[in-house]
């Protein structure tokens, strides 16, 4: 077993000292910072040239209200603190309604095409009335840029407020009373009530419950990502060793099982190092913001434990693929089914979160390839799961992982000296059985 350590140490140091590790280490925070900066830049790059909108107000009473709101908005809401334009001003002009609706719409459309105006709105005669009339209740916005929704959104709010008030008036209903009568209810989703140290009754806060879920959920995603990174890394390392002709010397010195184990531990340790550094960074930031209490430490430990086993499990499968092929491109068809196995938990995660103790969730978490993600996610969802389940999951996964490493070792020895066309899954299964 001493040799496992020798391989582990070399693998770990070779990777941690490599440039790509440093790049990965810096990349993630850099990407995050970069995306914030890009968003800011994009925010400032909004098209702020004025929108000229023609309004055909067939009610005859709405245009003034629209015009007034637009002027107010142009005066107050389209510049930032430094006085720069961050939103487009809306210039609304009234167009007298004509009887031939179709002809007028055609004429206005032509003006949009000629860039004379940006768009036009046609408001039906019955909009302000409390009695519905399907033929005259329309408000239509015509433009050649359907994805530019800024004006439409604004107009919707302005018109709705105005129109509803007018309908109340017409029906002789006191607006304040009606609004009070139809106010919506909001159901608060709370945890159970407990008693604090001073004997006072204390309610669980909604925000706490949400973070208690979101944080571990984020962790399990981090775990998924690191498996997705470390697995192919393992595969690539082994293919490189085959291509650089190192593998035969290694097999002459160390049993394949030990070699695989050492390499897997190395790759896994590299990923764990990376995750720990990120987590430490995240914890530091959380502490600066005074939110460190929200990080549930016991679940971080579970997450790291399950993450390590998941990386070994999938690492060995990817490693076996690497051992079976002689070039990375030959590996693609073999990687596909493994990837499906890997993302399987993602497919079922929504029903599992909704019923963390249902039969699907239960059985999926004892299907070894899905165990890590399932267990960590289910533990994160209140009220959690019985403690025996995550504990029982560990020997199960270790057993499965040991089998994977053993199988990968056999494939490595047989596949090592194979040349020519890449093997099929059936061939690989034969290698595992026969040795």
């Amino acid at each position, binding site marked *: 077993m*001493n*040799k496992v350590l*020798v*391989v582990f140490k*070399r693998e770990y140091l*070779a990777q941690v000292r*490599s440039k790509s590790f440093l790049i990965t280490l810096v990349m993630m925070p850099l990407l995050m910072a970069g995306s914030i900066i890009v968003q800011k830049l994009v925010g400032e790059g909004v098209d702020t040239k004025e929108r000229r909108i023609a309004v055909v107000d067939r009610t005859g009473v709405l245009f003034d209200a629209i015009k007034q709101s637009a002027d107010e908005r142009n005066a107050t809401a389209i510049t930032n603190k430094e006085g720069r334009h961050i939103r487009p001003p809306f210039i609304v002009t009234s167009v007298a309604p004509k009887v031939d609706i179709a002809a007028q719409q055609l004429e206005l459309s032509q003006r949009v095409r000629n860039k004379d105006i940006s768009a036009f709105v046609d408001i039906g005669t019955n909009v302000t009335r409390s009695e519905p009339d399907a033929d005259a209740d329309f408000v239509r916005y015509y433009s050649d840029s359907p994805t530019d929704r800024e004006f439409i959104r604004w107009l919707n709010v302005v018109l709705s407020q105005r129109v509803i008030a007018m309908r109340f008036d017409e029906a002789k209903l006191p607006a304040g009373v009606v609004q009070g009568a139809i106010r919506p209810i909001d159901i608060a989703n709370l945890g159970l009530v407990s008693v604090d140290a001073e004997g006072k009754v204390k309610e669980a806060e909604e925000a706490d419950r949400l973070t208690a879920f979101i944080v571990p959920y984020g962790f399990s995603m981090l775990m998924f990502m690191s498996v997705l990174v470390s697995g192919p890394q393992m595969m690539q390392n082994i293919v490189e*060793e085959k291509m*650089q*002709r*190192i593998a*035969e*010397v*290694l*097999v*002459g*010195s*160390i*049993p394949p099982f*030990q070699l695989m184990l050492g390499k897997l531990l190395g790759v896994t340790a590299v990923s764990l190092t990376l995750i720990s550094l990120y987590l430490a960074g995240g914890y530091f930031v959380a502490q600066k913001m005074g939110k460190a209490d929200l990080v549930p430490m016991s679940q971080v430990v579970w997450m790291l434990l399950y993450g390590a086993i998941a990386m070994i499990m999938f690492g060995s499968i990817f490693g076996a693929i690497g051992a079976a092929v002689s070039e990375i491109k030959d590996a693609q068809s073999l990687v596909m089914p493994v990837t499906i196995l890997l993302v399987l938990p993602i497919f079922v995660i929504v029903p599992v979160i909704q019923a963390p103790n249902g039969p699907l969730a239960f059985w999926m978490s004892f299907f070894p390839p899905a165990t890590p993600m399932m267990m960590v996610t289910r533990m994160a969802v209140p009220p959690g799961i019985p403690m025996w389940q995550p504990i029982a999951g560990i020997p199960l996964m270790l057993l499965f992982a040991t089998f994977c490493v053993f199988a990968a070792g056999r494939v490595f*020895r047989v596949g*090592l*000296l194979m040349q020519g066309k890449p093997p099929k899954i059936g061939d690989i299964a034969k290698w595992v059985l026969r*040795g």
Partner: protein
Amino acid sequence: MNAVEMSGVTKSFGAVTAVRDLSLVVPTGSVYGFIGPNGSGKTTTIRMIMRIFYPDSGDIRVFGETHSQAATDRIGYLPEERGLYKKMKVQDVLTFYAKLKGFNQPGAEIDAWLARLGLSDWANKRVETLSKGMAQKIQFVAAVVSRPELVILDEPFSGLDPVNLDVLRDAIVSLKRDGSTVIFSTHDMSAAEKMCDQIFMIYRGEKVLDGTLASIQDTYGADTIRLRLEDAGCLSSLQGVDHVKDFGAYQEIRLGDGVDAQRILSTIAARTRVSLFEVARPSLHDIFVRIAGTEAQAS
């Protein structure tokens, strides 16, 4: 005790039989040369001794044990296809290989070998900066740095210039002096003649020669005669001669079974002037070509 004992070993890959019913004994402390044309089964035999391949049938013992794993700390191995971690420093690579063989304090041994092969200045350079010849010498050091009792070298001389070839030959001889058993395969017949206590030739998966150089030469007898004649043309119609080769400055003939050299001399002397007549032992090169040559020419 014998370092390696193989008996009745057969190994097939699909329909191709790479090695057929092979038996071989490599005594401890000897230098054993494996020769044979490309694709005749040398590397397969070596990989079976290393337990990288398992034989289909037959028995292989190394130091009396039928070990089940390739990883034996007692064997140092230089594969035919060689490679080193390109990004690692020479010193680190060698330390890694030594430790993999369970040799945990290899510092002094590495320094000594690098000095002997004239590579001391390169100890802290990365492998990717080495020339091909240097990398090959480093690979050799990797195979022997853990002081293995048995050293197996697959084509150790290929691609080396004459100077480095001598350096490596001396190194192999010194391994023997220090008590190691050495098996190496080669296409360099003169190296095999000079260095090997015993020579083993495999051809089409079967053993065709096995023994000391002298015993092999005895088997092939004193049937080769070197001549210098005024008119080499008269050799062509000579009775009792199997094979004639005209090198220009001299000629070589091989006698048929039971043909007397003395009688041939008198026949030739009657036809032309003879300025050289020498009964020679066939070189290993000649024996190799005699076994494999006709087939190679035919194909």
